[in-house]
């Protein structure tokens, strides 16, 4: 199950070698590549982490961790 953890190394590879993305072009919505490329990693990393979370999660979530109304339940209790 822990082999899924390897996926979490992908953002490190994508971000810790700046020559990969330290350029002006191509631009997007007025953003130089350097900026929108890094912003794009935010949702990608979140999605990867969530995927790994689902894949490595053990058993059923406890009732408190499941379902709707979590905000109301946690904050109001």
């Amino acid at each position: 199950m822990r082999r899924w953890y390897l996926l979490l190394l992908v953002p490190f590879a994508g971000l810790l070698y700046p020559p990969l993305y330290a350029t002006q072009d191509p631009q997007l919505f007025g953003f130089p590549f350097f900026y929108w490329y890094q912003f794009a990693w935010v949702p990608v990393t979140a999605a990867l982490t969530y995927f790994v979370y689902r894949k490595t999660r053990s058993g059923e979530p406890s009732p408190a961790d499941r379902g709707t109304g979590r905000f109301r339940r946690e904050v109001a209790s």
Partner: protein
Amino acid sequence: MSFETNAVTITVFSALFLLVTVLGFVAARWKRGDLDLLDEWGLGGRRFGTVITWFLLGGDLFTAYTFIAVPALVFAVGAGGFFALPYTIIVFPLVFLVMPRLWSVASKHRYVTGPDYVKGRYGSRSLATAITFTGLLATMPYIALQLVGIEVVIQALGIGGGHLPLIIAFAILAAYTYTSGLRAPAMIALVKDTLIYATVIVAVIYIPSKLGGFDHIFSAAGDALPKRDEPGALIPSGADAQVAYATLALGSAMALFLYPHALTAVLSSRSQDVVRRNMSLLPAWTFLLGLMALLGYMAIAAGIKVTEPNLTVPALFDNMFPSWFFGVALAAIAIGALVPAAVMSIAAANLFTRNIWKEFVRPDCSDREESQVAKIVSLVVKAGALAFVLFLPTKFAIDLQLLGGVWMLQTLPAVMLALYTRWLHRWGLLAGWAAGMVAGTWIAASQDFVPVWATPIIGATAYTGLVALVLNLAVASVLTLVLGRHGRADELDETRDVDYDELRETREPAPAVGAGVA
């Protein structure tokens, strides 16, 4: 520029500040527990679920000072200041891997602090004390910086002159932290985070529309930055700038969750499942921080001139926003300083009580006394931070906070590596820690507290903290090999492999204390 007093701004600001003050005191009754127990006062009874942990960690890690300093740095140097984005992207996968293991072992053995764990793992009081010392040393200036954030807001409100407003704000904070413990910042974080989100989202839509769009903002910044006295750049070019960028991002990410206030927020969550799930939700904060950083370029495009860089964001907001929304934005920043300041002082209090008071002064003190000492220490710590800001130059706190990251990183082998292996010898860890602390401090001081260093041998400009960590690990490894089995004392390890299993849901019920536990 100077800020003028505006009645509307001050009214909006005061109303919001009053709201969180009331919340801070009411929080004592929330998810009620026996606040005379350290687990309750200092960790909220370890009952926080996904939503509250998200607000608390977000409010705790992305501090008001971050929201002032990052745009100010981007305003001053350009792309170099943007390393905060990759830093706060990679930190969450990293924490996803490491922290659930710490949560599991801490919950099993009821550890409240990092040094609690180190002592359990290595049976070494000296090593645990070294980690305690590092945590306290790094946290104090960090709290002081939150005060600097409040001071900036007070200046922007135009009611500067004298430190009275700052002292009042801090006295209120100290009072409700004392009575409510970690519940206070957890509850206030709900308000703070909402205000910050509202402010930033409005800012990044409204301000570019007034400045002619993002392409204009970037091109204005690209024109202005190279002409600075110390030229900046829109895109980091050259090996030095790029290695510095990457090592700062990596080193800062590795250091962040070693800080006592980050550990406190992690340990206060209900389960390791909550911790792991949050790591896929917290990047929402990263996105916000990235947008905040762009305010630095907007300030350039708007032609903002400031006397000190920390005023960049307030000056931009003052220039762009109507006065009532300026009040909302300033309240967001000021309240944003209260949450981390409270969590940090609680974390420092937990540290002192568990690892100094109980360890050296009163080993047999009762749970009640333990909690009482922590409450008092939280006051002392805040008074210390206040004195810091009142009597020492701001640069001193900023330099020390930079050093704080370098220092915290030196506890990584004893705290984080220990979660995976006990191979390193405890004396090796202690010697490595000492070597890293001394070398890191010395290098940073010799560079006038610029966080990067043109490292000999590897021939690149890298983050000082990482350089010191490499030395730290080298010393620890060599000593481990030299000492061999001598004095290893594996039987002192009170943890078992199974305690670390982060994939096994423990399902241990929260301690049944007090009434009305949800």
